[in-house]
């Protein structure tokens, strides 16, 4: 892999192309090319432990700029983080689904509130 192919591989992973298979190739290139290793250091050095810290911002839609690019790259290159992201997303989704289930309020409560209002206004 040369420098141009290396940059294309980074771009492909950032934009979501399945690319774990090329990870070994570009890691090998980064080891042999100090220029690419320096230029793309955030992509190569960001750890899974740091990526999980960005999840809340990612779901809030507030992950922008290079941080977002590094996040997208890592998620597409790391099956473990992809898996963690997916189950985190399902956790949020299943929690949000609880907001739709609602039983009617008991008539006893409605009557008590209205009686308390009458007492309040007298």
């Amino acid at each position, binding site marked *: 892999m040369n420098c141009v192919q290396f940059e294309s591989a980074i771009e492909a992973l950032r934009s979501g192309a399945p690319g774990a298979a090329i990870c070994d190739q570009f890691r090998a290139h980064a080891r042999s090319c100090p220029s690419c290793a320096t230029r793309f250091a955030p992509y190569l050095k960001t750890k899974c432990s740091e990526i999980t810290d960005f999840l809340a911002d990612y779901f809030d839609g507030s992950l922008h700029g290079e941080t977002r690019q590094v996040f997208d790259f890592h998620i597409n290159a790391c*099956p473990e983080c992809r898996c963690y992201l*997916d*189950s985190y997303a399902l956790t949020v989704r299943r929690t949000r689904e609880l907001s739709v289930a*609602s039983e009617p309020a008991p008539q006893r409560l409605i009557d008590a509130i209205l009686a308390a209002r009458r007492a309040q*206004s007298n």
Partner: protein
Amino acid sequence: MRADSTQREQAAAGADVAAELALLARLRAGEEAAFAELVAAHAARMLAAARRILRSDEDAQDAVQDAFLSAFKALERFQGDARLSTWLHRIAINAALMRLRSQKRRREQDVDELLPSFAEDGHHELAPKRWSEAAEDPLVVAESRALVRAKIDELPDNYRVALVLRDIEGLDNEELAERLGVSVNAAKIRVHRARQALKTLLDPHFGEPSGPQNP
């Protein structure tokens, strides 16, 4: 087609606002039927929110009653810059939080043991579990919801309430921070840790036996 649909939506929203303004006028005039209408329309959602915060039906009903009485007193000051339903929902949340705080103080607990752990090189120590997609069978859906609800209730109060307010009651980060009396960043971190802890509690139920498979 899309323009028609947007126009219909705008017309419906306009009609809702007009109906709400008419109801507000009747409430301010002290019309008994208007209060009955308001309570009947909004008590269920307010009670559901209070139940999720307080976990006790009796306490939740008391909180909803407190909330409505506060709202009735504040009707004159209601500016109409939010929908009535949103305004009442926020008042119910405040009433439930006040009741929760007035209860015997619990020591704030952490959820460290439920957070993911990482090796020294920063990689996951244990491969995260892949989850199966949500089922569509109504019985399974009901069971799943009951399970998620039960696991949320296992979280320490400080995390549980943050999660409930953000992900179920729909407060944004700024509102959440205000309700919890913490900075926006602290509120975001608390929700994130609560989600991670909940995910760990749900892993044995929704996770498939094997970890991720490399392509």
